[in-house]
């Protein structure tokens, strides 16, 4: 990379250091001493990051059971997610990707194959859900964050955040939004983490040729697909470079760097063409000669994939060739300017880049100062009674005519108001908990009735809860006492509730005894099973 003299910045002598120093000091701590002990941790951090990239996919399967609009257990969400990333990656070429609708439409058959009996609407909704989750709709950054730890040079443990995206939404000049797979997603998909693009591609092709000579076409197809993803990835890096150079030609090293770069890229494409054409010939032959129908089909698929690779290389080559002309045109257009007439500030190099390089807390000052000075003046509104009246009487602007149709928002219903007030809960707790000696539920209900008409139901619920009380959890959480209910077979005679007349008591938890089966562990396992049914019985309300 060429050094851009203007953009470099160095700390000035200590004379000007002010109260802001501690921040700087912390940052220096973090970034100082490259290599060293950090080198050992690098691999670990890399693997942790690679692992983090798969987390959103696992998360989909973990959360699918919680979907309330479908019983999504039958869908393999991680598979659908990988397929989604595949589809987006394949749709990516130099200019655009696919938009949301196209991807959903391509996903639906795949989703439908997993649960053919389910309605089409549900398949589409599943596809949309997976897509939204891969974009992570609903967060401001539309990405994922994974916190991982590294051991710094001074031996302290630091938690750092790794931000990544799987699918990125990009806008075309026309304002349409389409999808691209991020580098992380392509890496997760291909499974070749932290490897050099070029060498990995060569390796994949060697592997492919090997596989074909041995006749293992199923594996060969996999390798060919991987090679295609690498081709796309390679094209992506080139595209970013070309886009950057087209934006501004002035400082690009036209003498050496760019021609070298283009040459090496063209040489690379040439060798790929040769390799892929050789592979194509071989597989075409293999396809035509193969007796086994399965082999024939695999070979046909391979032919298709390799042809696709070749098409992509052709596109890449066309871009590379056009780059030269773009450079010359831009050079003519941009390079023609005289020496400065007056000393001015280099806004980009002296203000924007240094501001971007500052930590957020320190960047606020400069950018706020800039904004206040560059924003111009605001004329404060002055309300007079006549203007106020006309302002109030003015009809509200019709949003439909200004910004198009206003969508009907989908509102989630407000949460149910709680059945019982906090006061009820407190009173019920008091009633149930203050019993030292075992007491009948019927007595408690009678007491509750004298306090509040609504209270008995809550007391009954508490009693039912105490019946199946999880003593183990109470011991683990270090509770002092727990309310237990026991059933001695007496039926409950009550006008409102049915079931057993439980015996309730507050029992102290003996944490020490619990560890070796002491009095804390009062509930043998066998009893547990029929408890659930019976405790339900308590709640049968006689309406």
């Amino acid at each position, binding site marked *: *990379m*060429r050094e*851009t*003299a*203007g*953009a*470099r910045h*160095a700390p000035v002598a200590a004379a000007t250091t002010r109260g802001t120093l501690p*921040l700087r000091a*912390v*940052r220096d701590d*973090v*970034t100082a001493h490259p290599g060293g002990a*950090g080198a050992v941790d690098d691999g670990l951090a890399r693997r942790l990051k690679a692992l983090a990239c798969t987390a959103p996919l696992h998360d989909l399967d973990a959360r699918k059971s919680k979907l309330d609009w479908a019983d999504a257990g039958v869908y393999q969400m991680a598979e659908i997610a990988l397929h989604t990333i595949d589809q987006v990656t394949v749709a990516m070429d130099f200019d655009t990707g696919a938009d949301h609708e196209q991807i959903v439409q391509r996903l639906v058959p795949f989703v439908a194959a997993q649960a053919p009996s389910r309605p089409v609407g549900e398949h589409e909704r599943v596809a949309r859900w997976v897509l939204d989750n891969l*974009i992570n709709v609903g967060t*401001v*950054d539309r990405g994922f964050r994974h916190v991982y730890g590294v051991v710094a040079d001074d031996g302290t443990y630091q938690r*750092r*955040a790794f*931000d990544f995206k799987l699918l*990125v939404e*990009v*806008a075309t000049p026309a304002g349409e*939004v389409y999808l691209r797979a991020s580098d992380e997603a392509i890496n997760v998909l291909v499974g070749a983490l932290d490897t050099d693009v070029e060498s990995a591609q060569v390796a994949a092709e060697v592997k492919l040729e090997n596989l074909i000579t041995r006749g293992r076409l199923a594996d060969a197809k996999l390798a060919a697909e991987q090679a295609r993803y690498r081709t796309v990835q390679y094209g992506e*890096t080139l595209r*970013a*470079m070309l886009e*950057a150079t087209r934006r501004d030609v002035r*400082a690009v*090293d036209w003498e050496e760097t760019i021609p070298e770069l283009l040459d090496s890229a063209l040489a690379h494409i040439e060798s790929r063409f040769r390799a892929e054409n050789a592979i194509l010939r071989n597989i075409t032959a293999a396809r035509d000669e193969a007796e086994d129908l399965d082999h024939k089909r695999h070979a046909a698929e391979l032919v298709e994939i390799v042809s696709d690779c070749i098409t992509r290389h052709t596109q890449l080559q066309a871009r590379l060739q056009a780059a030269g002309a773009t450079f010359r045109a831009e050079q003519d257009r941009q390079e023609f300017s005289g*020496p*400065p007439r*007056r*000393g001015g500030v*280099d*806004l980009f*190099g*002296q203000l924007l*880049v*240094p*501001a*971007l*390089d*500052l*930590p*957020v*807390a320190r960047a*606020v000052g*400069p*950018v*706020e*100062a*800039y*904004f*206040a*000075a560059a924003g*111009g*003046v*605001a004329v404060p509104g002055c309300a007079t009674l006549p203007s106020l009246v006309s302002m109030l009487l003015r009809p509200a602007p019709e949003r439909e005519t200004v910004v*198009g149709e206003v969508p009907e928002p989908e509102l989630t219903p407000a949460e149910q108001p709680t059945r019982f007030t906090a006061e009820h809960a407190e009173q019920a707790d008091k009633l149930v908990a203050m019993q030292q000696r075992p007491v009948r539920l019927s007595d408690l209900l009678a007491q509750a009735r004298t306090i509040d008409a609504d209270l008995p139901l809550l007391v009954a619920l508490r009693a039912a809860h105490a019946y199946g009380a999880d003593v183990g959890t109470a011991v683990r959480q270090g509770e002092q006492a727990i309310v237990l209910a026991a059933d001695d077979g007496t039926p409950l005679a009550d006008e409102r509730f049915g079931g057993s007349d439980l015996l309730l008591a507050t029992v102290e938890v003996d944490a020490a005894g619990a560890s070796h089966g002491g009095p804390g562990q009062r509930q043998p396992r066998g009893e547990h099973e029929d408890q659930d049914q019976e405790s339900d019985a308590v709640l049968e309300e006689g309406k």
Partner: protein
Amino acid sequence: MSGVTDTEAAARLIGFGLRPKQVPARDTAYADLVRKYQADGQFKQLTHAVAAGLGLLVLEVNQQAGAVLAAGEESAFEIKMDNYARQSKIRERRETEKVMHGVIHLATAALAFPRPDDLANDTYIGRVSVEQIDSVVREACRILDERAAQAESNGDPLSDAPELEQAWRVYARRPAAAATKDGRLAPDTTRGMISRALRFLAEQGFLVHISSDRGGTYRTTPRYQIQVRELAADRAFGELLDLDVVAVADDVGTLRADTSETL
């Protein structure tokens, strides 16, 4: 010469300056006042005094831009970042939002006047578009990213000290666009924020809308050049100097695309 009428004229000139879209070329009264300001030294002083009394600073008065004013600190005419950024969602940290907006405004000026020369040249008219600004900032972020990667240090932000995260990471992480149900621009995205900034600057008489190409294309007005050159750039530069961040410029400027090392 009557002091009272002169004072009234000076105040009227300030009044014209407060309506940023008005230019002397379209208003003879305004043009006369500008001529008077340029010819009459006493009237010039009087105008400055009236402006100072109102908490305003006269940056420049000429026929192209009219009276270009800036609000002093704590003046009633000041536009505060807090008010500008207020509409953003509260759940995001306020400082982060402020930095995002500030960076976008800086980038707008940087792209409008790419070389120091352009800022100094009175006849230069810059052109900016939403798409360009976003790509320029992202490009700067990419360069900083590569620089950080070359330093071979772990640059991932500390999870428990988000305020130490560098501004470029915040910007790079924010999506450029997001699909909305009705196809409108999502306000949280960088393109949404940029088009808001450009609309705001057009409202302030600093930019003129040309077309809707590339997310909205605008050209600069002489007023914007004066505002950035005479005041804003210096203020921000001063703040950066206070933070020990010094950058030396050459005559061609540094807004350029570096070739990527990723290949």
